[in-house]
C-alpha cells in the first residue's frame, strides 16, 4: 500500500493498531479492518450520521475523519456500550420504546445519544431533538427515539452513581 502508516488508538477499551494509507477514512478502518460493523455508511456528504462514533468524548461522523487523524485517541462504538453483559440504558430503552425499525441508523443514534446524556443528563424533548439532529432516521419519525432517550436519561438518573 502506497505510503501506508501504522495508527494506534483505543477502540472500546482495547488497544488496536491499523496499517493504513493516509487517505483511508475511519469508517472503513473500523468496519473493514477492525471488523466493527456497527457504525454504518448512509451517505458521502457527512449528512446521515449513521457512521457516528465517539472519539475523545466527541460525537464524530467517522466518514469524515481520516484514520491517521485518530492516532492516540479513545474511540467508542456501539459495540462498546454493553458492559460485562449488561446493556446500556439507551440500548434497553431503544427496544422498550420501539425506537428502531430497520436498525440501520440505530448504532449511530445510540452512540450520539450516549454522548448527549454525558453532556446533558436530563434533556428536554426539544433539547433531544436539537442535539440529535445530526442523525437521520427514515423509519421511526424520531418520536420514539426521543422517548427512548428520555426514558434512558430517567433510568440513569435513578441509578446510584
Amino acid at each position, binding site marked *: 500500500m502506497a505510503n501506508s502508516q501504522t495508527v494506534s488508538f483505543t477502540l472500546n477499551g482495547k488497544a488496536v493498531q491499523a496499517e493504513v494509507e493516509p487517505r483511508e477514512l475511519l469508517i472503513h478502518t473500523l468496519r473493514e479492518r477492525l471488523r466493527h460493523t456497527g457504525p454504518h455508511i448512509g451517505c458521502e*456528504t*457527512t*449528512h446521515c450520521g449513521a457512521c457516528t462514533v465517539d472519539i475523545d468524548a466527541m460525537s464524530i461522523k467517522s466518514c*469524515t475523519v481520516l484514520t491517521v487523524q485518530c492516532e492516540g485517541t479513545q474511540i467508542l462504538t456501539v459495540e462498546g456500550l454493553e458492559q460485562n453483559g449488561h446493556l446500556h440504558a439507551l440500548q434497553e430503552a431503544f427496544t422498550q420504546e420501539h425506537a428502531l425499525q430497520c436498525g440501520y441508523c440505530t448504532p449511530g443514534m445510540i452512540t450520539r445519544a450516549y454522548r448527549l446524556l454525558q453532556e446533558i443528563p436530563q434533556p428536554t424533548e426539544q433539547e433531544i431533538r436539537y442535539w440529535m439532529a445530526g442523525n437521520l432516521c427514515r423509519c421511526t419519525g424520531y418520536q420514539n427515539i426521543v422517548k427512548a432517550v428520555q426514558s434512558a436519561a430517567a433510568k440513569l438518573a435513578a441509578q446510584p452513581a
Partner: protein
Amino acid sequence: MKVELERSFPMAASAEAVWRVLQNVEAVAGCMPGAKIAERIDERHFKGTVSVRVGPATMTFRGDVEVRDVDAAARSLRLVGKGTDSTGTSGASMDLAASVQGAGAESVLVGKSEVAMSGKAAAFGGRLMNTVADQVLKQFAANFAALVAQAPAESAPGAASEAPGPRDGASPASSRPLNALGLLWAIIKDWLRGLFGRSAA
C-alpha cells in the same frame, strides 16, 4: 444547462489587423480562458485542456477544440470546445463565435458564446452559467487583446486571404491557469456550497 451571451469588445487595432490575428487559429484557440493547446491534429482541430483552480477545488477538462466557419469576407469564425473532466464525471462545452467589425484604426471584436455543463459540474454549479459565460467572454477578449497588442503591426500582403494556419508560439493566455475570478469560479463556489454542506474547513 446552456446559456448564450453576446458581448462586444473594442480593439486597439484595425479590423484588418485584428482579423489577421484572429486567423492565428492555434493562438486564438489558446485565448479560450484557461485553455492549453496540447496537440494539433490538423489546422482546424486541436486537443487541449482547460484547468480551473479555486480555493481547494481543482478541475481539468480534457477535450477538443475545433475551428469552424472561417469566413474571411465577414471576418468571422467559430471556436468549438468540448471536454470531459479528468474524473469523467463532468462535461463542459463552449461554442464561441467571434467576428471583427468596424473600419479605421479601431475595431470591435464581437463575441457570442454558448456554454453548457453536464454531470457534477451542472449538478453543483450549473445555476451560475450566466456568470460563467460572461467570464468566458471577458477572459477571451482580454487574452485576445493581449494577443493583438503583441502581434506585428504590418503583415505580408494578402495575408488576410491566406488559408488560416497555425503559427509558432501559443497565445500569452494559453498556459495561464484560471485565477479565482476566472472561468467557472462560480461553479466551483457552488460545488463547495452545494456539495459540501459543512461549516468548517
